[in-house]
């Protein structure tokens, strides 16, 4: 740039002071930089971080919302909302809550009763594994404020854990049952629970 800015005649050069090979090298480096940039920038997408190279590749690596993902989420929500009484191992606690592990209510074919218990709450005597149990405080309607997806994840988790083996419950299932329940008092023990279709 020197010769451009200079007005003095003595400094005027008649030929380029930069050798042509340096210019060629610069252009090659700029080209290679461009190629690297093209491969690694994700086009300034805020969501794309290395090692992902493009928004398309990132989308391809999204884990599917398979049952494992739902169960994992269900475990989290369960331990926060249910685990304090039913226990992180699903064994229940004396004087607080009945076990869920191996419970015939949890392993039932249908899910209607299972959705309604957290939705409405439960009082009175409930028979689990042939043993009638009565809990002074009953169960509050802890599930009524949860989203369909969260409640479905919890139910799927308890139905797939601690030796339980029943089908998954989807958010749509929960939604349908909730719509059919409407306003209601807490379920009154075995007697009323059995009047609800499975």
């Amino acid at each position: 740039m020197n010769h451009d800015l200079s007005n003095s005649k003595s400094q005027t050069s008649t030929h380029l002071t930069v050798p042509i090979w340096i210019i060629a090298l610069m252009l090659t480096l700029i080209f290679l930089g461009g190629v690297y940039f093209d491969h690694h920038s994700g086009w300034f997408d805020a969501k794309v971080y290395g090692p992902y190279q493009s928004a398309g590749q990132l989308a391809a690596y999204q884990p599917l919302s398979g049952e494992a993902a739902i169960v994992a989420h269900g475990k989290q929500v369960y331990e926060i909302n249910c685990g304090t009484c039913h226990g992180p191992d699903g064994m229940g606690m004396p004087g607080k809550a009945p076990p869920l592990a191996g419970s015939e209510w949890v392993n039932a074919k249908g899910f209607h009763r299972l959705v309604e218990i957290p939705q409405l709450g439960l009082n009175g005597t409930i028979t689990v594994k042939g043993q009638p149990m009565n809990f002074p405080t009953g169960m509050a309607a802890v599930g009524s404020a949860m989203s369909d997806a969260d409640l479905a994840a919890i139910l799927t988790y308890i139905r797939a854990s601690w030796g339980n083996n029943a089908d998954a419950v989807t958010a749509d299932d929960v939604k349908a049952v909730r719509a059919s329940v409407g306003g209601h008092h807490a379920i009154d023990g075995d007697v009323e629970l059995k009047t609800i279709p499975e």
Partner: protein
Amino acid sequence: MKSSFPIFLAVFVALGASFGGFVVGGISQLGTEKQTTVLNSTDTYPLQRTGDATLGLQVYRAQGCAACHTTQVRQDGMTCDVVLMGAGKNLRAVQKVLGEIAPADKDLATNQLPKTIFSGVTKEVAGDNSDKLTGAGAKAEIHINATGADISRGWGIRQSVAEDFLWDYPVQLGSLRAGPDLANVGARYTMNLQLQHLYAPQSVDKNSAMPPFKYLFVVRKKINGELSPDALSLPKGIVPDDSEVIPTDDAKNLAAYLVSLRADVPLYDAPFTPTVSAPAEKK
């Protein structure tokens, strides 16, 4: 000065280009970052820190923790596992496919499920093989894992992304790793262990190079020989039997901040498949 205009122009371009690249570019790329949802769930991430943890960030800053600790996990790549979740109705058809793609698992019985058939393969290989299994009526899932040196050290499950730092001001990224990365330290240590580690680092990890932050604690005689509710439950031998260690507010806030450092959920920009048996404790 005859060439003042070209000089001004050159300075303007040089400063303007770096301002544009570092400030304007950065803001336009990440300036509108907001809370997002955890993958495959309705949970919001990151949740606002509790009050004590917010104050704890300032303690972290004042104690110069960022001089020796980073809070950014790096990731070099990603791999896929193919997990067979269920054999479906025709176990023999599934076994036949397994005989072709994974001979070691060809005698698979249903009580061994779920079973990882392939691990550490690329997305393409995983997709092909899971399609083959699904074609035989089985239920197969592809699990995504983040890989890298930091992740194999157990410092995190995935790389750090912009959302992780949404509530941090100023962000304590750090650049030197005299100690381990803390991006996910809340998942490794409980509150009491954080406090014990601050008081006597070598009692938690005997090779630790961390200086003890004893001045964040008060050591005093036990009252009537009983531990106060706030006192640390330390292993024997750190303080005399008749003394107890009480954390100051600074120590409590700092520990609350450390417990709040928990980057262990999958996000759209940092995907992975969470394992059912709490990944945080396993690592």
